[in-house]
């Protein structure tokens, strides 16, 4: 299979940006907005993720995030396969939560 759980990647972006001054806050919110525009979705506060159907595609988005990096701040970028992502355990309080669905090539709404 060309599209499978070992090839599909999730790109995770973790960030801590300074928000002391008004200017810093504006830079931080700009960074957040830009990665949203690139198709990342909020997973937790300051953890964003995006689905990529291949390594090449993931690289495109990683490079875009790198170009958006603000002057100050602590940012991590990580990729995991869909298989690894699917093994994550998620909780909301003590209640277990379902993971976000992996987007399929064909989706019927």
């Amino acid at each position, binding site marked *: 299979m*060309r*599209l499978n759980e070992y090839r599909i990647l999730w790109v995770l972006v973790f960030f801590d940006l300074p928000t002391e001054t008004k200017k810093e806050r504006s830079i931080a919110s700009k960074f957040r*907005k830009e990665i*949203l*525009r*690139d*198709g990342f*979705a909020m997973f937790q506060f300051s953890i964003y993720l*995006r689905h990529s*159907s*291949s390594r*090449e*595609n993931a690289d495109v988005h990683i490079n875009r995030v790198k170009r958006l990096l603000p002057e100050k701040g602590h940012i991590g970028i990580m990729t995991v396969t869909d298989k690894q992502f699917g093994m994550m355990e998620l909780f909301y309080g003590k209640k277990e939560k379902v993971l976000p669905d992996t*987007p*399929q*090539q*064909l*989706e*019927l*709404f």
Partner: protein
Amino acid sequence: MIKRTLHFSNPAYLSLQQNQLSIDLPHLKSLGEKESRKLVPIEDIGIIILDNQQITITHGCIAALLSNNAAIITCNKSRHPTGMMLPIDGHNTQSERFRYQIDASQPLKKQLWQQTVQAKILNQAAILFNRDIPCKNMIHWAKSVRSGDPDNYEGRAAVYYWKNVFPEKIDFFRGRDGDPPNNLLNYGYAILRAIVARGLVCSGLLPTLGIHHRNKYNAYCLADDIMEPYRPYVDEIVLGIIDRGENFLELGKDIKTQLLGIATVDVQFEKNRSPLLVGLQTTTSSLAKCYEGTIRRINYPIMKNFETKRGSGFDESED
């Protein structure tokens, strides 16, 4: 990278939010906010099919989809594709490519049509071969196609193919308004046509100006030309549905899913293999180069190699 296909058969409100396609599904409202809303990055979308009369789509959304080279297909009340919308500006050297295409000489067009017919007949033969139906005559016809196909081997092959390809219990007559499974074929071809038209536009070609089809009422002549060798891939899916004994009298959701899967079917080229949606762009960009005069062959996928050797009069064009 393979792009995504989105098919909407329920009421939906489509709009743009942070460059993402925001999908609002009112029929899922009762499940809560989270389930009824979805975001899909516009740049991941290849084809979007609007198959419900109660879909609202904003203009910003249409513009963003088109500027990303997505094809938008609309369906009529009977849920059959009726129209498609493609970008004007699909390629950076658009007008140069248009000019090459318009200036293409008659002999070149005839040679391209010869290659197209050969590829189509060979792929049809491959389908017959896989079903243990005699196909030697098809291979012979494919080899005999001359520039421009003046002997109409395409038609001859099609008659033989459609007469034999379906199981005997199905009394089949291929026609646009014919009985099932014609409905499945028509649906599959309509989706395929949209994929082909999208590929052509992405390669900077005008889908209107065909190499063989020239019906003055047809807006997608070139798409109809180029899709010919790809049709057997749809046939293969339809045959699979029939062989499994599924009820094909109506176009159910399950059957539609299988037919829409055409975008991900693997197609084999001489050197590499790729999903049809991606492979088509190999074909259309090779066609653009043919118009430009840098290469002489369109790169069509082959379903089975019948060991037709190069230089045996099969691969070479005749004039």
